[in-house]
C-alpha cells in the first residue's frame, strides 16, 4: 500500500524542482501527445532515451518511478498478450504447432509446480510468473514427447509485436512523466500551475480556480486515504479479519469491511475540510492574493522549447515517412 507513488510529492533538489509548475504541466501535455504520435522504432527509442536523460538530469530516484510503475505491470502484460493473440496483421513471425501429449502436459505441470513452490523465494514475482508462462508455451511448442492427442497452433504476426511494444512503451512513458510531475511539484504549486494553465477556459464560463482546487485536493488526499485504509485494516484485523487468506465469500466480506468505513471517513473528512476552508474565509470564485508568486525563468523557456520541438519533430516524421 505504502509504495504507491502516484500523486506523492517527495522533497529533493534538481532543476525539475526549481521549474515553474506551469512549464511542467504544459511540457507534460506536449510530451504525452508526442508519445502518442510516435509510430517508428528510432523515434520511440529516442523518446525512451530522453526519458532516461530527464530522470538522471533531474536527479530523480529511478527506483521510486519504477515502483510507481509496478501497479501498472498487470495491465501492460495483459495488453501485450492480447495483442499477441488477436492481432493478425503483417507478416507471420512465429508459427508454432502446439503438441498436447500426455508427457508434454506432465512437463508443463512440473513447471507450474516448480513455479508454485519457488515463487515465494523470488523477488520479482510477476516477471517470474511471466517467464513461467512463456516457458510453458515454449515447452508445448518445441517438445514432442510421445503421441499427441490434440494439436493447436500459435501464430504471432509482426504487427502484433510492434503494436504491443508501442502501447506498452506509450503507457510507461505517460505514467513516468506524470509521476515525475507529482514527485517534483508541491501540491500547492501544482494547484497554482493548473489554475494558471486553465485560465483561458474562463472565456467559456468554466470556473477554473474551483477545478484546480478540486484536482489538487484529490491529489493531496490520496496518501492520507491510504493511511486511513491502513488503520481500518488494522482495526478489522483485530476483530479477526484475515486480509491475506480466506475463501471467496470471506474475501468479499473483508473488502466490504474495509470499503464502508473508508467511504464514511472520506465523506466526513471532506465535510470537515469544507468547514475548515469556510472558517478561513474561503469563498469559491472570489479573487485571492497569493503568498508565493510564480516566476518564469530561462530554464522554463528552454524546457518549453524542447517539448515543442519534440512534438513537431514526431509529427513531421510521421507525416513525411
Amino acid at each position, binding site marked *: 500500500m*505504502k509504495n504507491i507513488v502516484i500523486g506523492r510529492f*517527495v*522533497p529533493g533538489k534538481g532543476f525539475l524542482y526549481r521549474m515553474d509548475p506551469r512549464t511542467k504541466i504544459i511540457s507534460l501535455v506536449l510530451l504525452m501527445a508526442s508519445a502518442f504520435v510516435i509510430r517508428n522504432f528510432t523515434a520511440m527509442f529516442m523518446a525512451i532515451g530522453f526519458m532516461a536523460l530527464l530522470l538522471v538530469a533531474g536527479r530523480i530516484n529511478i527506483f521510486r518511478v519504477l515502483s510507481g510503475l509496478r501497479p501498472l505491470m498487470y495491465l501492460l502484460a495483459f495488453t501485450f498478450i492480447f495483442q499477441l493473440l488477436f492481432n493478425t496483421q503483417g507478416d507471420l513471425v512465429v508459427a508454432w504447432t502446439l503438441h498436447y501429449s500426455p508427457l508434454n502436459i506432465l512437463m508443463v505441470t512440473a513447471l507450474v509446480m516448480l513455479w508454485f513452490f519457488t515463487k*515465494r523465494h523470488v523477488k520479482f514475482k510477476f516477471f517470474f510468473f511471466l517467464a513461467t508462462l512463456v516457458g510453458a508455451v515454449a515447452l508445448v511448442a518445441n517438445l514432442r514427447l510421445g503421441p499427441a492427442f490434440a494439436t493447436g497452433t500459435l501464430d504471432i504476426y509482426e504487427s502484433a509485436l510492434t503494436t504491443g511494444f508501442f502501447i506498452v512503451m506509450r503507457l510507461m512513458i505517460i505514467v513516468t512523466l506524470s509521476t515525475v510531475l507529482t514527485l517534483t511539484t508541491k501540491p500547492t504549486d501544482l494547484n497554482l500551475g493548473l489554475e494558471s494553465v486553465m485560465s483561458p477556459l474562463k472565456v467559456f464560463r468554466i470556473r477554473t480556480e474551483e477545478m484546480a482546487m478540486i484536482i489538487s485536493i484529490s491529489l493531496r488526499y490520496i496518501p492520507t486515504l491510504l493511511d*486511513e485504509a491502513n*488503520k*481500518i485494516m*488494522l*482495526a*478489522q*484485523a*483485530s*476483530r*479477526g*479479519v*484475515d486480509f*491475506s487468506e480466506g475463501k471467496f465469500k470471506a474475501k468479499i466480506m473483508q473488502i*466490504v*469491511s474495509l470499503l*464502508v*468505513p473508508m467511504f*464514511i*471517513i472520506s465523506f*466526513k473528512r471532506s465535510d470537515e475540510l469544507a468547514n475548515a476552508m469556510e472558517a478561513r474565509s474561503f469563498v469559491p470564485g472570489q479573487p485571492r492574493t497569493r503568498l508565493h508568486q510564480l516566476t518564469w525563468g530561462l530554464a522554463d523557456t528552454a524546457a518549453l522549447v524542447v517539448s515543442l520541438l519534440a512534438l513537431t519533430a514526431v509529427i513531421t516524421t510521421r507525416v513525411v515517412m
Partner: protein
Amino acid sequence: MAIKFNRVDFKYKGDDKKGYLALSNISLSIQGEGEFITLIGETGSGKTTLVQHMNALLVANSGSVDIYGIKVEKQAVKKKKIRLNPIRKKVGLVFQFPEYQLFEETVLKDITFGPKNFGVPEAEAIETAQRVIRIVGLDESYLDRSPFNLSGGEKKRVSIAGILAMEPDILILDEPTSGLDPMGRNALLKVFYDIHEKLNKTVIIITHDMNTVYEYAKRVLVMRDSYLVYDGDPVDLFTTKNIENWNLDVPDILNLMHRMEQDLGITLTSRPRSAAALTNALEEVLR
C-alpha cells in the same frame, strides 16, 4: 506469562530513510489474568504502537513478542509460519476511533462480526451481543439501529461491545473514555473494572486521565520518547518519581492531600485512592 516483550524495537517507515522510532528496547511481561494496567505518556510517545504489538497487528523490527506461547517476530510473520488470528481472539484491542471499525448495517451485525470471524455460531453470537450491549450501557433497542446514526459516545460504546463480544482473555482499550461525558466515562471505567474483578481478566487501558490511573490501576506503564521509563505501582510513581519530566501531572486526590497537609496541617495515616476512601481516612484523623 501471557504476553512477553523481549527487547523490542519498532520504527515507522517514513519518506526519509530514518523513519520514526516508536519503540526502543522494550522488555516487559503481562499476566494473562488478574492485572489492571494503565498505560500513560505524552502523545507520540509510542503507547498505541506498544498495544498494537500486543495482538500482533504490528511486528517488531528487532526483538520478539511472545503472546500465549506464540513467538511473534519479523521473519516468522513474513514467511507466514504462524497464524495470527488465534492471538487476536485471545487479546482484544479496541481502537481509539470507532469510525475505523464500524461498517455493518445494524449494530447487532457489527457486534457479531468479530465472534463470527472466530467461528462462533450465529445464534450464540447474537446472544452474546444482547448481553454485551447492556454491559456497555446501551439497551437492546440499539441493536436494530444503524451504527452510523449514533452519537460519538454511542459509537464508542458499540465499538467496545464489538470487542467484548469476542470474549478475549486480555482486553486492551486505547483511550476508551475520550469523547464521553463525565457520567458515561465513570460508568464505563466501572464496567472495565468489573470485567477485571468478576472475571479476573487482565485489562490494559491507555489514558491521559491521572485520576483514573491513581484510582483503578494496579500497575502503571509510562512511555516517554519510545522508551518504557516506568513499570510499577501507581502510588510510587506519583509520590517518588519526578513526573513533570514525563509531562504527567499529579492526581486530584494527591493534590488535595498535599494541600491539606500544608494549609490545614492534617496528615493522613493511610493513602486513599478514591474520594470515598479519602473521606473515610479524613474521618479517622479528625475523630
